[in-house]
């Protein structure tokens, strides 16, 4: 059993509850023990840095300090949390004066950060620690050629962490394929979904979402999978607004990669939070079922 400090992030408990639920239920069958950091708080999220950089780093560093004490690698399933925590960490080890300043603030809460923490995204852990080969060996319901568009979003690969290519990443593709599904050619797989601009610039973002949906469908995807809560929310919850704005008829399920893994591991859809997805994943479930029947399982 591999042990990790776990930082779920706020989305996994709210808008992306499906992510939080599915991570929890797939961990055990994949021999991962995710130990939630006690007393974790908001990571500061991406926009905070442009309001007050120092404060935003302190907010992130508080969580880093808590995780550092535990002595395990810190894993988060949220791309935005990952970027925020990772950037704060890099900033702090690159700038000792900033580190001292931040530690002065943390001292008030009796905390300190020393920079001895490895911050990792769950997708990277699944790819490199657990490995697609091992996941494949635990698959109970192979996905039998389900056509999946692997959508990385921007934050999983940018800035350059050195774990995957920024323009044409591969790790999510491998995870999709190890489940017996087919990762379709998806040239926009690392493009922006619009992020938090859905709130301030909705019409622009709907254009971006449309491009992604269109590109996935053009390459015959039956669903999109992503590890990112924000990407999932935009593509899933705003699909109907795209349809009404552009007079289109998209009905493309958008799953978390952890939900897809869960399905292949034989976990029931409610435990994976699939009932919380807005575009019904019914077509995906139906396909899997029909394939099972065909193969006489």
């Amino acid at each position, binding site marked *: 059993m591999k042990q990790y400090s776990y930082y779920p992030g706020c989305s996994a408990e709210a808008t992306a509850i499906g992510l939080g639920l599915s991570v929890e239920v797939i961990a055990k069958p994949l021999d991962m023990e995710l130990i939630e950091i006690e007393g974790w708080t908001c990571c500061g999220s991406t926009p905070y840095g442009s309001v007050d950089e120092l404060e935003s780093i302190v907010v992130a560093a508080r969580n880093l300090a808590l995780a550092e004490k535990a002595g395990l690698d810190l894993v988060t399933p949220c791309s935005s949390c990952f970027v925020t925590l990772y950037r704060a960490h890099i900033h702090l080890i690159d700038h000792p004066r900033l580190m001292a300043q931040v530690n002065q603030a943390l001292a008030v809460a009796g905390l300190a950060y020393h920079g001895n923490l490895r911050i990792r995204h769950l997708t990277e852990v699944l790819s490199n620690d657990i490995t697609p080969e091992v996941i494949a060996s635990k698959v109970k319901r192979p996905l039998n050629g389900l056509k999946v568009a692997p959508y990385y979003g921007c934050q999983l690969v940018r800035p350059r962490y050195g774990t995957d*290519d920024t323009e*044409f990443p591969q790790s999510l593709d491998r995870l999709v394929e190890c489940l017996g599904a087919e990762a379709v050619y998806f*040239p*926009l797989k690392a493009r922006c979904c619009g992020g938090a601009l859905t709130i301030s610039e909705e019409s622009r973002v709907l254009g971006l979402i449309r*491009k992604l949906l269109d*590109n996935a469908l053009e390459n015959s995807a039956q669903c999109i999978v992503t590890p990112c809560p924000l990407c999932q929310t935009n593509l899933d919850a705003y699909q109907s607004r795209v349809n009404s704005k552009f007079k289109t008829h998209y009905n493309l399920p958008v799953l978390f990669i952890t939900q897809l893994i869960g399905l292949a591991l034989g976990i029931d859809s409610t435990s994976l939070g699939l009932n919380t997805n807005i575009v019904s994943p019914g077509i995906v479930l139906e396909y899997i079922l029909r394939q099972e029947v065909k193969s006489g399982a």
Partner: protein
Amino acid sequence: MEPRIGVYTCHCGSNIAGTVDVAEVTRFAQDLDGVVIARDYKFMCSDPGQKLIKKDIKELGLNRVVVASCSPTMHEPTFRRACQEAGINPYLFEMANIREHCSWVTEDKQEATEKAKALVSAAVSRVYYHEPLETREVPINPNTLVVGGGIAGIQAALKIADSGHKVYLVETSPSIGGHMAQLDKTFPTLDCSACILTPKMTLVGSHPYIELLTYSEVEEVSGYIGNFKVKIRKKAKYVDADKCTGCGICQIKCPAKVDSEFEAGLGKRKVIYTPFPQAVPNIPVIDREHCIYFIKGKCRACEKFCEVGAIDFEQQDEILEVEVGSIIVTTGFEVFDPTPIYQYGYGRLDNVVTSLEFERLVNSAGPTDGEILLKDGSHPESIAIIHCVGSRDEQYHEYCSRVCCMYSMKFAHLIKEHTDAEVYEFYIDIRSFGKGYEEFYNRILSEGTTFIRGKPAEVTNIAETPEEKGKLVVQFEDTLAGLQRRLPVDMVILSCALEPQPDAGKTARLFNINRSADGFFLEKHPKLDPVATMTDGVFIAGCCQGPKDIPDTVAQASAAAAEVLAMISKGKVEIEAATAIIDESICTSCQACLLVCPYSAIDFDEEKKVCRVNEALCKGCGACVGGCPSDAINLKHYTNEQIVAQMEGALV
């Protein structure tokens, strides 16, 4: 003989005297052990300054000299010569650097004067123990090896051979000509590349003093300046060069086709082939890897049709051993492969081509006879040229490839000449630095090419508007207008970087050349010794040293030839006397010194089981002295006694 030392402190105008109290230094030196006379003078390196030293040597019977002035790399040779002319061995001279190491870097006068005194004291203590050394001379073999048959190698070989000296020109491919033979026109004059190159190639092929070894590789180099021994592998061509008339019937009859390297993969060649019609030598070779006979055991079509019986399937590789006095390495460059830059779509999207592919596409002798065609055979109406692909990019090559701006603008001109297409140049900065280059830039501007400042983010075939359907769309930031824009075009040319040959590391080890951080071969001095390398007798020219255009390449190749001819004309070379020497009675044959020597100057004597320094190769760096666990190695002119004395002197 009791040391009689003269100490001379230089003012160097105000360079030294402005910070150091030279009179005080002179007074101090006068009282040091063994010092007979101490003087100071405005410019020691001047004629009167040197005369001062010579006069004292003669009149006061000095047998050691210390000059406290600038860096020894500046004037050590000057003062050594002065000593020699006055009759004392040049190695009985020592220099104290009180300018770069003292006056220039110290503000406080008192502090500077004290440091100058310490440096002078150190030099005096050291020179006390100096011993006379003799420089040796070795003869220069007048033959030369040139490695690489591109324009650099051709130029260097011709210059040397024209003076009546033998040149071995080695080229790995079946013909000389290199990249220049593939190019269409040359900037900024637009003369045809092949037209100016092929006469030179023909001259090489028929030159009585050039032995042309194509389809050959250098395997081993030993020896030292003036006296290299080189092993060359002549790969089997399976064609008897003495019988072949170059009629070409074998190439017509050969049934197997593969991608042509010369056509940058845009065209096909036969398996028995010359790379291009003007190849020198005009004798085909059989590409063994793809030959049907070598794969399946039958065919031999070429043999059946060859009227003179020149095909010889039994031919074997040959090893040729030659002796040369100097080597010029001109192994050129490789064009950057843009496939890893996923967002530009090369290899994924039709009609995205590299600059070298475009050279062939626009070349009247190329696969389309010079017609600029899209993949579907139609004519492009608009073409985008993206500069700096793989250059000026931290992900790939940080350096500027120097030729891309110019050849990209040449492309714009050629496109306008051949078609009615609109041309868009996407640039970061335009670097038109050479003679006539800025004028060429202005000419291209006036021809109506659109220049857009901004490096495109991507090239995509995903349309967003009806106008974009079926086009390649360039997404970019126009940094002058401050706008994000999209431009639909029919063809995209990627102006790819020039990078070191993939086997540059191997070549560097073979010839004992260093490489700079970018992977290109390193010259001895970036300004004052641009074609020499750290290995005496080995020179570099052309793009193997760094990206450059044809005029610069030719100039460098001529410079390398001049260096070689100067050596040949002198006939001998002086070898540094300050070399390492191994005490064979102490050497335990561990061979640790062999590993640390950066010049491969140490050999192991198998019979006596001792290591021995080749004085001709030794540069006196001292790495082996430190590396020897038995303390068996001493470096002449840097003996332990001398170094310790110098340190003790500095501590007064």
